């Protein structure tokens, strides 16, 4: 029983990690390669959720909704990059923070204007409801399993894209020395636009996966964004591998803290104190981890190879 419980909680943590990875991957690409601090990344996650719910409303199919929402967030990302962010690359980080913070406000307001105030909800498709029996009597909700599979597929695809393709080569070269890349006749501007669009697509995909559960609502991206930043600090800025491992570590630690910390604290604290300290500590755990990483390995666990 307890072993099954432990495994289920581990899967829960893994699933949270996968979701964080979808956000962190785009963030780390944009921050590491384009040297742009993009606070509005959470807004793209939110827009992904809204697109998905809206397309679902029109097509009545989750699959079609995803198929339409993926290119929509990609195009939105490109639009945002071309219209606003392009001018910010040469500016310092503070200007970027200010401008992208402005974008958050704009997106939140647009969403309130276009869609109903309570947000958009959509059902989890009936064929994805229910649980499957994994090995050894572990029952796991199908939908959460789907999120894990989609995230793993994205991770593998990104691994090939960055490691094995010409575009990935350019991305890595751009991260190492963008001036040299430009001098070799590569259109760095266009590369950046594509990378940003890709990041937007990944964040949007995270939003789409969550739309049936959370309902799309204004401001839903902000709290997730903070976690995504923690993840890339842990994993190492600019590294997809770091983002993946950092996200899984953060997801698992957070979930395990919420699952076992209160029981653990009961071992050496009176019930009242354990009850008070449990939630406080478990919500702090991943920040403690981040602080530890910053102290002992400030470049992150798996920094991008540069130079």
């Amino acid at each position: 029983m307890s072993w099954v419980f432990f495994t289920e909680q581990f899967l829960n943590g893994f699933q949270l990690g996968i979701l964080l990875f979808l956000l962190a991957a785009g963030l780390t690409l944009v921050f590491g390669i384009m040297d742009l601090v993009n606070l509005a990344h959470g807004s793209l996650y939110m827009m992904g959720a809204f697109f998905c719910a809206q397309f679902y409303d029109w097509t009545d199919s989750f699959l079609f909704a995803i198929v339409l929402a993926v290119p929509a967030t990609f195009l939105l990302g490109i639009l945002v990059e071309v219209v606003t962010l392009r001018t910010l690359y040469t500016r310092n980080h503070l200007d970027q923070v200010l401008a992208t913070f402005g974008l958050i406000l704009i997106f939140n307001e647009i969403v309130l204007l276009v869609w109903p105030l309570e947000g958009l909800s959509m059902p989890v498709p009936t064929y994805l409801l229910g649980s499957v029996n994994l090995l050894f009597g572990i029952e796991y909700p199908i939908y959460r399993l789907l999120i894990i599979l989609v995230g793993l597929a994205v991770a593998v695809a990104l691994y090939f894209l960055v490691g094995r393709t010409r575009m990935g080569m350019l991305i890595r070269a751009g991260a190492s020395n963008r001036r040299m890349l430009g001098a070799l006749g590569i259109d760095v501007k266009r590369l950046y636009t594509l990378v940003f669009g890709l990041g937007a697509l990944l964040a949007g995909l995270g939003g789409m996966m969550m739309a049936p559960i959370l309902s799309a609502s204004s401001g839903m991206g902000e709290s997730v964004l903070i976690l995504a930043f923690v993840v890339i600090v842990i994993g190492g800025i600019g590294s997809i591998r770091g983002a993946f491992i950092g996200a899984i570590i953060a997801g698992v630690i957070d979930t395990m803290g919420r699952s076992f910390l209160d029981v653990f604290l009961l071992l050496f604290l009176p019930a009242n104190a354990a009850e008070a300290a449990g939630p406080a500590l478990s919500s702090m755990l991943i920040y403690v981890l981040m602080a530890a990483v910053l102290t002992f390995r400030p470049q992150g666990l798996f920094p991008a190879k540069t130079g």
Partner: protein
Amino acid sequence: MKSKIILLATAAAMMAGPALAAEKIKIGFVTTLSKGPVVIGKDMQNSVELALDHIGRKMAGKDVEVVYGDDKFNPQDGKQETERLLQRDKVDIIAGYIWSNVLLASWPVARDAGKIMISSNAGPSQLAGKGCHKNFFNISWQNDQTPMALGELLNRQGVKSLYIIAPNYAAGKNMVSGVERTFKGKVVGKDMTKWPAQKEWAAELTKVKAANPEGVFVFYPGGHGPAFVKEFTLAGLNGKIPLYSVYTLDSISLPLFQKANMNGVMGTVMTQQWVPDLDNEQNKRFVADFKKKHGKYPSFYGSQAYDTIFFIKDAVEAVNGDMSNIDGLRARMQDTQFKSVRGKFKMGANHFPVQDFWSRKVVADADGNWTTSAGEVVLKDHQDVYAKDCKM
């Protein structure tokens, strides 16, 4: 001689007249309008505006102006807005406040300014007991009361074991202590989640599944409610373990559930001091006109905001619109005679209501729209437990 007096009186009236006519009654109303669960704030704002329409935008013959403040779902912003309303807009009375943590941060501002503050929703224990104050009134409930009613309802339904999940902030803690105070069975598990950041309950729900209680109690206001119930369903718990809630399923979230085909919430039971179908004139007019104007049911937040305006009107008319007469206003508020959408309404000695709590159930109305319908009175003329610690 007599004519002289008349002349003087006329002169005095002429001086006072225009000044009085120009003087407006200004009410500040702080709620959530731009960030977080904006839909709650707008629902309250719509209800305030409807109440103003119903009273012809006048109290004691004077024009009423409501100035809104936006707390952005954040205690610090709520406090700043309270300062702005009191100092720059010079409101006579300040009301509103959805969130306990926002209210607790904002209250000292009004207290130090010597103004009357009315909470239209948040009812933290801190202000009901030792920290009560002559200038603070609550028109909704003390946080513990609704869950206390729910605990009592659980006893009546014979529930023996309960798992509690609630957010870890002022109101969440009150809700938990409330249900624990009256529930006679065993609490087999309890999780307090990070508020408002945590919107994902996979870990907690797996614990629920392992504990296999006879009921789950939750408190998740705003957008968290629908998300929780969805994940509850996703975890396969719907239909297996009954879900009991306070302030989680309301007129704001039910249309979302309906749209998402979440038939599992049908018949779900909760407790509340107000239900849309309570049978009294004030309530019928409020609900009917709100539906006519906005095409949906008002929420309990809205009902309290609507009551707030009538509560203020009752006091303002008792002092003939003289807003400088704080003592008079306060005396009448303590002994308020306003007509509440709840039917009867009485203010307790600690300035929190003494009132009935109903059980209410999710149903479909005649038009097929999902709403809640009143059941039995679970707690009658109930006063919160902190009232005895209040010395004004």
